[in-house]
């Protein structure tokens, strides 16, 4: 398999890899390739930064206390499960 084929395959699997949804043996192959191939390494870093940005900036909001209280009130009044 040529180096270009490796890059193509790694780019295709990069999203699954970064979501940690690849089997360990495939993930190890990709880790190896990313360490050896600067353009693919940059590509992975770019995706990582983007996802980290969303996670860090947007996942901090909590349900306001007033809404929580409203929900608990509504549950108290709701028909209980059969």
């Amino acid at each position, binding site marked *: 398999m040529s180096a270009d084929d490796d890059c193509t395959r790694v780019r295709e699997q990069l999203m699954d890899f970064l979501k940690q949804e690849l089997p360990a043996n495939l993930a190890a192959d990709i880790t190896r390739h990313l360490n050896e191939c600067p353009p693919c390494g940059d*590509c992975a870093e770019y995706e990582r930064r983007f996802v980290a940005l969303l996670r860090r*900036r947007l996942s901090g*909001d909590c*349900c306001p206390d007033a*809404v929580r209280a409203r929900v608990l009130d509504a549950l108290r009044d709701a028909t209980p*499960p059969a």
Partner: protein
Amino acid sequence: MTAPTRAGFDQEILPHLDLLYRVALRFTREPARAEDLVQDTMVKAYRNWEKFEPGTSARAWLLAILRNTFINAYRREKREPIPMDHEVLDAHMAAHPGEESDPEGAFFDKIVDERILKALDTLPPEFREVMVLSDVEGLPYAEIAHALAIPVGTVKSRLFRARRLMQTELYEHALETGIITARSGR
């Protein structure tokens, strides 16, 4: 098998209230509607609690109820079909926006929260919901597929396209505001 109880509901479901609220906020994009959606979802979940299968993902079950409730009752605007050019962008989307000028995406960190939110909120709803569940909330593919009632393959293709659309939007914003300078010439 134990009978479904309010205590069991509280234990399985209440810990996901923050997540539910955030997702409702991104689905509706309006706090007042998000609050109603959260309340309606919780009441519906409680009434249907006996249908929850113990051992499966409670948050995916809850998010599926949230999404159905949203689609049935709250979405005033019609859900538009995904425009064609979003489905056929693949060939142009192989490269990252800004690959030459900022290959590692350092510019992302310099973008303010409001602009990130705006880029997310202007994605087509089918893309936005996948992006929120995957990249903001960190759910695995299988739970997203369950929550949205779509195949895992569809989750992946929508996520891929959603990321490229949003990256393009943020990159163009970064260029316009001078956060990065496009490499010229060469």
